[in-house]
């Protein structure tokens, strides 16, 4: 039922797609961590307009489909006289979308550290930044890692949306392979295996890290 010659004959295309999926996910992950941290800082800042902006950003993005952010860049680029490739618009869209979830995870982590910790740090003569750096953030980090790990896996899975905007990823390459082999079942079984090769070890790694962090308490 599964034709293995498809994998061997089209290995190059599969690998191209697989590497593009990894590249896009890695770039989007980096982008969403940076953007998400900035938004989380906005959400806990003492300046009201920044807090409002952070809340609006997170609530809006969390409640819309990922494809809308991708299409905003892909279809919206030419309107703004920016020509973004499918890969670029897909990766930017993914980064922006995931940053809302990352921001929420970081904010929840920082809020989970009891207020007394900040007060204790401040009364011991540490500055606000020092207290954050040495007292609050190390404790928040443990709480933040598991949800960020989840988001990382979601991001890899969501990167399949690149296939909807000609992003050269696994889904896109599979479309090309399928148009040559006409064996849609086998072609996409291998696509699934390539995704699992990425996501299952990462899931195991994150649950291992989660268990390790819990033990440290």
């Amino acid at each position, binding site marked *: *039922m599964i034709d293995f010659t498809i994998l061997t004959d089209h290995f190059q295309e599969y690998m191209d797609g697989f590497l593009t999926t990894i590249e896009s996910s890695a770039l989007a992950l980096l982008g969403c961590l940076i953007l998400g941290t900035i938004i989380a800082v906005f959400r806990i800042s003492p300046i009201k307009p920044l807090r409002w902006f952070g809340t609006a950003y997170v*609530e*809006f993005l*969390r*409640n*819309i*489909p*990922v*494809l*809308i952010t991708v*299409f*905003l860049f892909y*279809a*919206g680029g*030419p*309107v*703004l006289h920016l020509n973004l490739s499918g890969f670029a618009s897909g990766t930017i869209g993914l980064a922006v979308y995931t940053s809302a979830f990352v921001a929420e995870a970081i904010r929840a982590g920082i809020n989970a550290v009891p207020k007394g910790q900040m007060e204790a740090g401040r009364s011991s003569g540490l500055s606000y930044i020092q207290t954050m750096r040495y007292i609050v953030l190390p404790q928040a980090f443990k709480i933040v890692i598991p949800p960020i790990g989840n988001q990382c*896996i979601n991001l*890899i*899975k*969501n*990167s*399949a*949306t690149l*296939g*909807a905007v000609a992003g050269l990823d696994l*889904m896109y390459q599979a479309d090309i392979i399928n148009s040559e082999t006409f064996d*849609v*079942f086998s072609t*996409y*079984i291998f*696509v*699934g295996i390539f*995704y*699992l090769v990425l*996501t*299952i070890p990462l*899931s195991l790694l994150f649950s291992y890290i989660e268990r390790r962090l819990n033990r440290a308490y």
Partner: protein
Amino acid sequence: MDMDFAGALSPANLKYMMHGLGVTLEVAVWSIVLSFLLANLIAVLRYARIPVLSQILFVFVEIVRNLPLLLIIFFMFFAVPDVLKINITPIQAAIAALTIFESAMISEIIRGGLNSIPKGQIEAGRSSGLTYVQTLRYIVLPQALRKMVPPLVSQFISLLKDTSLAIIISLEELLRTTQIVYSQKMSYVFPALIFAALVYFVINYSLSLVAGRLEKRFNV
């Protein structure tokens, strides 16, 4: 920036997009009901640790959870009918794919809820003379359900957003109809996409407010 709100949201276009919203909601409601039923079955069978079956279900859940939903939808529409020699419409394929994917996700939420109930509760129920099924039904599930409501609602919100992935099998749901509308003119792109985003936002945000209220009421 070139934006023509009046043109993009003309009565004809709006009507078409609202038709898309109807399809989105239809797919979402069917998938929520079916995946919730299937997820309960998977979770209870795994919770009861029935040999072989619970291992098979573990593998099923882990594989499905770790695949992109987009791939499952595509596979359900193109590959499955090809192999089984059956005909399937885009809406059936979307509901089937969402049901499979979400039942794996939801079964983990239910299993987590069940596992959070101390074993002593089951032992107490069993010693009071209740059968295993009765203990699950009257002792474990009512307590577990309270803890499951908030994550369940957020999973349903994810499901509603994920119906838009059926765009790759050209199902005429909200995002697909939006895409058809904005393909008419460059100046329609932002108005149509912003409108669709707001529709998704209003529905999902209301759902999350309901979830927040339930969370307070159940005191979890």
